[in-house]
């Protein structure tokens, strides 16, 4: 079993819909949680970075962390066609440097 499991998708939603992405993890030592966006044939781009349980909002993006359930989510409000990409969750232990990634969820927002 992988340390980080991500809902496989793919997801296809109409423009303006809310996109919900989820990851679970098994290692309780993970302390920092990230969401990366990866466009086709590009590198991962950091979207959100959190380290505590609760919600963090940045524009149309909300990251949610529940350490007790070992569950993280990313919500995208008012989705746009430009949000079409693969979204990767990633996490890291305190004082470590290796990122552990989920497999990614590919999202398509239809105009």
């Amino acid at each position: 079993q992988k340390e980080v499991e991500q809902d496989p998708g793919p997801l296809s939603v109409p423009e303006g819909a809310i996109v919900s992405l989820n990851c679970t993890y098994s290692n309780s030592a993970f302390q920092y949680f990230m969401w990366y966006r990866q466009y086709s044939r590009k590198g991962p781009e950091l979207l959100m970075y959190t380290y505590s349980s609760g919600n963090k909002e940045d524009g149309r993006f909300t990251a949610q962390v529940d350490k007790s359930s070992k569950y993280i989510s990313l919500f995208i409000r008012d989705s746009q066609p430009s949000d079409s990409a693969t979204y990767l969750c990633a996490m890291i232990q305190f004082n470590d440097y290796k990122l552990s990634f989920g497999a990614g969820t590919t999202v398509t927002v239809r105009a």
Partner: protein
Amino acid sequence: GAGVSQSPRYKVAKRGQDVALRCDPISGHVSLFWYQQALGQGPEFLTYFQNEAQLDKSGLPSDRFFAERPEGSVSTLKIQRTQQEDSAVYLCASSGRQGASNQPQHFGDGTRLSIL
């Protein structure tokens, strides 16, 4: 440059050939990482440098893989006697402070390696 730069963007090699992949990190970044991303998967850690020192190479798949960062800036990932299973995207990332888990890693666009 403004971001992490990798070259070449695409590399096709015949099985058994040696390849070299280059990474130019963000200027001044101390930490440099290599990851391997298979099709449809998330990146997997290969190796970590702090300045010129390779502190962790536990993710390198075999002794055919070798990485270096001799002057603490540009890094090269070399794969000897390539095999078909080496086909993947090789991503380089850098971050500012050594070993600090709270420093975000910034990725390049990768080198897409295809072994025929």
